[in-house]
């Protein structure tokens, strides 16, 4: 293994690990945010209770 190959491989492991993890977190964040929007819009129309 030449130094260049070794360095590239080792660096890739670190970078890939970080990026893949962040990708997963961001994906779950999008899901959660979508769910929260859905939940809020469900509750939304019911909010203003007019007192008759």
């Amino acid at each position, binding site marked *: *293994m030449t*130094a*260049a*190959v*070794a*360095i590239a*491989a*080792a*660096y890739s*492991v*670190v*970078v890939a*690990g*970080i990026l893949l*993890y*962040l990708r997963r*977190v*961001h994906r*779950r*964040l999008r899901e*959660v*945010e979508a*769910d*929260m929007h859905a*939940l809020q819009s469900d509750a939304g129309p019911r909010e203003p209770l007019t007192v008759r």
Partner: protein
Amino acid sequence: MKALPWLGGAALVLLAVGLYIGLVGSPPDVFQRDYVRIMYMHVPSAFVAYLAVATVFVTSILYLWRGRESYDQIAHSAGELVTLFTAVALGSGMIWGKAVWGTWWTWDARLVTTAVLFLIYVGYLLIRELAEDRRRGARLAAVIGIIGALDVPVIHYSVVWFRTLHQPASIARGDIQMAPPMVAALMINLVAFSFIYVYMLLTRLRLERLEAARAAAELSP
């Protein structure tokens, strides 16, 4: 957190500088030649793993003591980062070992300690999954987080001494003599990785909080 993108940006800038110096602006090692440059990503990874362990330790104690959910949320996030960064440190360390020593596993004390640390915090995450309910999982995980963190220095020294006290260091890594640019590159990258750690922790924490909020919202009609 509004400042989060700035933090990420700063981290990347620092990392770029550090890697420039490390790859181009610093000399190769006397013994390991250019392979030593792996250290500029490997060592900061291990450093972040220990930062994360310390985070889990402190927040676990606070969680058990005070009971506030936010402590557990930070602990859980940091726990995931421990396993990520130990895994990454192990991977880069193994490549380093293969490149310089010809073997994927060198039974080097630090490599073994990192592997053991990885296993302990896999257990930390597993217990949350396997527990009956969320709260018990959090409490039990806190216990493991505390025990694991306390054990880390003991594990480290016993592993190092196991090999070196008994026989003269024949499997020595060969101490790397650090010229000033090497020190500079390493220090810069340590700071860069610390920024990356905080960035990742806060991002993961935000996810944890939102998922908790979602769970609470789904329960109440």
